[in-house]
């Protein structure tokens, strides 16, 4: 199992434990974490699963593929640590990863 820590835009924190292989988006949705809509169900084609990844964890992630980069380009509040959470698969090395959800998904 891998732990994921979600913080919402107002600062309140919730953690969940999920199996490896699951995406951060799925971890959120299956545990009722609000702030992630995931309208496309994880196909990297809606950008409504946008999260900010804690800088300490950024380096451990696989690089973004061009589709994710392009979809994030549609977001108005993209930052350097923005990722689409459906594109991050949980591995043992990511145990404890911390992400913040934006105020709005767009």
């Amino acid at each position, binding site marked *: 199992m891998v732990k994921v820590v979600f913080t919402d835009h107002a600062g309140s924190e919730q953690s969940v434990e999920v199996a490896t292989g699951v995406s951060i988006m799925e971890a959120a949705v299956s545990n009722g974490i609000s702030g992630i*809509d*995931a*309208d*496309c*169900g994880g*196909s*990297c*084609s*809606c*950008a*409504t699963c946008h999260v900010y990844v804690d800088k300490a964890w950024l380096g451990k992630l696989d690089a973004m593929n061009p*589709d994710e980069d*392009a*979809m994030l*380009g*549609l977001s*108005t*509040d993209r930052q350097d640590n923005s990722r689409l959470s459906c594109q991050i698969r949980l591995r043992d090395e990511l145990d404890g990863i911390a992400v913040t959800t934006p*105020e*709005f*998904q*767009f």
Partner: protein
Amino acid sequence: MSDSIVNEEIDRRPESKWSMVGKDPYSMPLEKIDLAHPGIWQENEFLPFLKRLREEAPVHYCAESATGPYWSVTKYKDIMEVDTSPHIYSSEPTIGIVDAYEQFTIPSFISMDPPKHDEQRRVVQGVVAPTNLKALEGLIRQRAQTILDGLPIGEEFDWVERVSIELTTQMLATLFDFPFEDRHKLTYWSDVATAIPGGGIIDNNEQRWAAMEDCLATFTRLWNERINAEPGNDLISMLAHGEATKNMPPMEYLGNILLLIVGGNDTTRNSITGGVLALNQFPEEYDKLRSDHSLIPNMVSEIIRWQTPLAYMRRTAKVDTVLNGQQIKKGEKVIMWYASGNQDDEVIENPERMIVDRPNARQHLSFGFGLHRCMGNRLAEMQLRIVWEEIMQRFERIEVVGEPERIYSSFVKGYAKMNVVLHPKKAA
């Protein structure tokens, strides 16, 4: 919505030999099925044709039609594949089934491919981002309240005209901070931009250009007013003061304004009407809603799925390709029937029902997916949420009387007229 380039050709009139109205969807030859003909859409007979294609020919070639040959894609997952492969399926030259008359096209990013699409969209999308919409919510709500409070109780009237059109027009006026008394011009320009010459609104393309020039002149005047004033919350002020937008060439400004007006007009209007119709068809859902208003946001997504205000978007194959076993050649038209994907029971349970508390209601195709996913989707949802919150404060029931009249179009899925009677909430 459509843009200036979606032209429903005049020779596609109801009595045309291409019409499938009144025909049995299962006994006609598969290859004769022509979803693009507007007849079955106006007569509300389209569902069994969509079902047959999903079952027997999910990627279907129609070789002969009033609009030329085209492919119909009807399954949810195939539509998703087309929508998310812009390098194979292009949005150029147009997203309507009829090819554009080039000289009468005002460029907008809905019919552009990356990288140009992405650059242009990025410049304007901030104006309809949720952060900005928050600032407009109060005024939009007030105006909705005024319209609803002015409606007759217990007496038959046309909901489309008195509510759906009026609300949508006022909401557009609010967004642009457009002179309120001139607001009907916005609807007129939207109608003209998409009208078929000879179809009642305009007689020829010269008239279209005259109206578009008036539109550009009006918005240029507003731009000049706003640029000389303090930055405001309205879309024009944001464009005029925005770093990335303030040097936009006039035609690009017009293209963007029109895309926002046209995009937000029929789609939202028909969702407002469609919601009322759906609650009348499924009274037990109306009961659920009455006992729990917190279902409104979920219901809004479900209404947008159930209505599917835009039946399709077109792509054009950029290369030879294969989709679900079918060979598609470079240059061929590929129509993604959102109206069918949203009825695909492999993905959506009991799709013909509007279920206010449907799980995963947001996972519908009505806004498209991928890079062209509807830019106004949060705005549309906000507008519908406000309208329904205000409706539920006031009326016990909106009763639909008789059958609505539907629009003659296979693209804009909506209503020309729908009579209703309002029943007020009993005093608590």
